């Protein structure tokens, strides 16, 4: 067992665990959006940032991918952590104004309004990539892709063509943290007949 501290509280973790896993095991709350225990962590949303301190040295890391180590001093609610959280949430409110889930999460951390104007009032997706990861890693189909890059990054079908390898299992809709996948689902899914027929034949 590895022993270290989160917010001053002594915690124990198994080798190979992350800081987030350990925190949740001990009932310590760290917000996340792009994390789901069923798939690999990607460290994309940065809401789970925590501060590591050692003497005067300190550094922010994403707890969902940071491996535990003996003697770590983890802080989940410092000024720097709150600053990242606040700005990410404020930007998310503007990026996904139509998502009640995002609004609820932001409100939980006292972010109720945003200084930014929204570019798309109907947007709910913040491209965390959970849908693509679950389809790839759990379902094993890769029917969903993260297409384009940078500010143009979005969820879609591979090569922007509705795909008939989708078996309409709904895993992506289940893991989606903002409810966006319900709307995107139909644009990704092509004629599901081929795949379903194949499955039925097996």
């Amino acid at each position: 067992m590895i022993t270290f501290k989160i917010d001053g509280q002594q915690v124990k973790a198994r080798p190979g665990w992350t800081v987030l896993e350990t925190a949740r095991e001990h009932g310590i709350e760290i917000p996340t959006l792009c994390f789901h225990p069923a798939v690999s962590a990607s460290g994309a949303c940065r809401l789970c940032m925590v501060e590591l301190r050692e003497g005067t040295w300190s550094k922010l890391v994403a707890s969902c991918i940071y491996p535990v180590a003996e003697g770590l001093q983890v802080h989940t609610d410092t000024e720097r952590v709150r600053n990242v959280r606040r700005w990410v949430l404020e930007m998310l409110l503007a990026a996904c104004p139509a998502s009640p889930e995002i609004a609820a999460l932001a409100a939980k951390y006292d972010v109720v309004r945003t200084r930014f104007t929204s570019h798309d009032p109907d947007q709910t997706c913040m491209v965390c990539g959970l849908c693509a990861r679950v389809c790839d890693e759990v379902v094993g189909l890769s029917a969903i892709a993260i297409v384009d890059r940078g500010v143009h990054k979005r969820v879609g079908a591979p090569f922007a063509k509705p795909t008939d390898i989708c078996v309409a299992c709904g895993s992506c809709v289940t893991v989606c943290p903002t409810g966006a996948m319900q709307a995107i689902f139909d644009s990704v899914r092509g004629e599901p007949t081929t795949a379903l027929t194949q499955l039925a034949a097996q």
Partner: protein
Amino acid sequence: MPNLSTALKMDPWRLQSGEELNRLRAQIIAGRDPQRPEIIICHGTGCLANGSDKVAKAFRAALEGKGIQAKVMPGIKTTGCHGFCSRGPLVIIRPQGLFYQRVKPKDVEEIVDHTLVHGKAVERLLYKDPSSGDLIFNEGEIPFYKLQQRIVLHNIGKIDPTDITDTIAAGGYQALAKALTTMTPEQVVAEMEKSGLRGRGGAGFPTGRKWRSALQAIKKKGRPVYVVVNGDEGDPGAFMDRTIMEGDPHAVLEGLIIGAYALGAAQGYLYVRAEYPLAIRHLEIAMHQAREYGLLGENILNSGFSFDARINRGAGAFVCGESTALFTSIEGKPGNPRPKYVRSVEEGLWGRPTVLNNVETWANVPLIIERGADWYAGLGVPHSTGTKVFSLVGKVNNVGLVEVPMGVSMAHIVEQIGGGVPDGKPFKAVQTGGPSGGCIPYSLKDTPVDFDSLTAAGSMMGSGAMIVMDHTDCVVDVGRYFLRFLEEESCGKCLPCRLGLTRLREILDNFSQGVGSEKDIEDLTSLSQAIQDGALCALGSSAPNPVLTTIRYFREEYLAHVQEHKCPAGVCKDLITYGIDPERCTGCMNCARQCPAQCITGKKKTAHVIDTHKCLRCGICKETCKFDAVFIS
């Protein structure tokens, strides 16, 4: 060349030992007449763009066609970049070392006739010292070169990068032979540690320590281990690595082979951006020739050590210069950075221990091995040893590539070597480290240029781009420029970078329109801090640096935009108006003809007037006016 190998009785050129390398070198040098006239023509990308290939063609035609009456037929050599790019195309005539600048194909006949036949200089093509007005004949006497200390660049401009014998004659592969025959891998790593060399790619991590950590990782995980060259130089205004790869590709290769020997790597990768076709070609030629000579591949110099490398071309993404994105790109996946809580020396390319160093870092390795760590550590300043190559661009007289010891002052580089700002006024600021760096204001011109001093000033060494700005550059506009660049180049994976850079830029957009308040400056600072702390990779975490440093040093200018609705530098279009000074205007009608909005009226020989409602603020009238009558208010 074939006669050389026959003379040495070698199985096509394959060198079997360090002695054979030395013998070959002596033979190449002996076969040359040091008094033979030689025409050296710069074929760096800058000079080529200015037509130096046409100059070379004209020289060939002139020499072949006319049958000149010199005793010895001159040789023609095309080399890598000489660095004095603003004066290109450059031609040097040896053995006198005459330095001709801005040579056009039509000048060639005169050079051949005056210099090669009659031994006289063509004065109008010589460099004129801007302060004294004296003509300077020799390259080494020009202040731009005289004030530099060229170590990494020492061969560039002298050797033909496509001919390995030229490199060997200049001492290439001596360090490799020394390492393979007289040093253990452990000694090579120890030498690198002792040299104090820090990575030239940006972060300045000590190279020796990186190699040492890799050795420790190998102990735990075993081999394979990979060595990788980061040649994905993408900072706007940076061309140091390109010049090294184009002008002295063997130096990079030799460093890489020595590194591979130190770490026991059998495979290396050179990741070079596809936008550098000449660098890629020269590296390919160099690797091919090195294999033929037994300097790369199986059983190098018959030492029992085998190593080979390949070139991977980057497809244009700036973020692929980031180590983990570079690895995923080599692995054939989209170039997204991966979170790096396990270091690359432990888990890099293909999940294996990997040493990734920048082009310039690798090119320093042979120098350190050949001349010793003590010599190297004596250059520069403690904690930032050696020299650094900078690309000096922007509002500066001598645009080009400079190499200086670490620790010289910013003013020395910009004012002495760079010759200052064109209009003679002091520079306003220098952006170091590209889009990830920061703006150093004139008031800090005596800052020593080394890793730690630049970081203390809020900027960073970065890869070595230095963009000089003068009083006509607006800091808000500069911030917007770099943010727009990074917005385009962000991979989009993490939220602080993907959403944050756009939001920062939007706030700056408002400033450029005079909209905002002091509170917005606080928001810019705190959002920047969140991006620095929160972003997944170095692209995001360093992206706010230009904004933060300009706020730190030019807060007044930000405030002027929103409080007085003025852009002091006269750049932000929404805050400026163009006008014509009736006292100065001669009524030449030039501006009126050029104006794309046709908003300038006035009769011939009477003062003109700009209709400010129609004016697009494009600035063409100001550029075209010969009487300096157009002003910005």
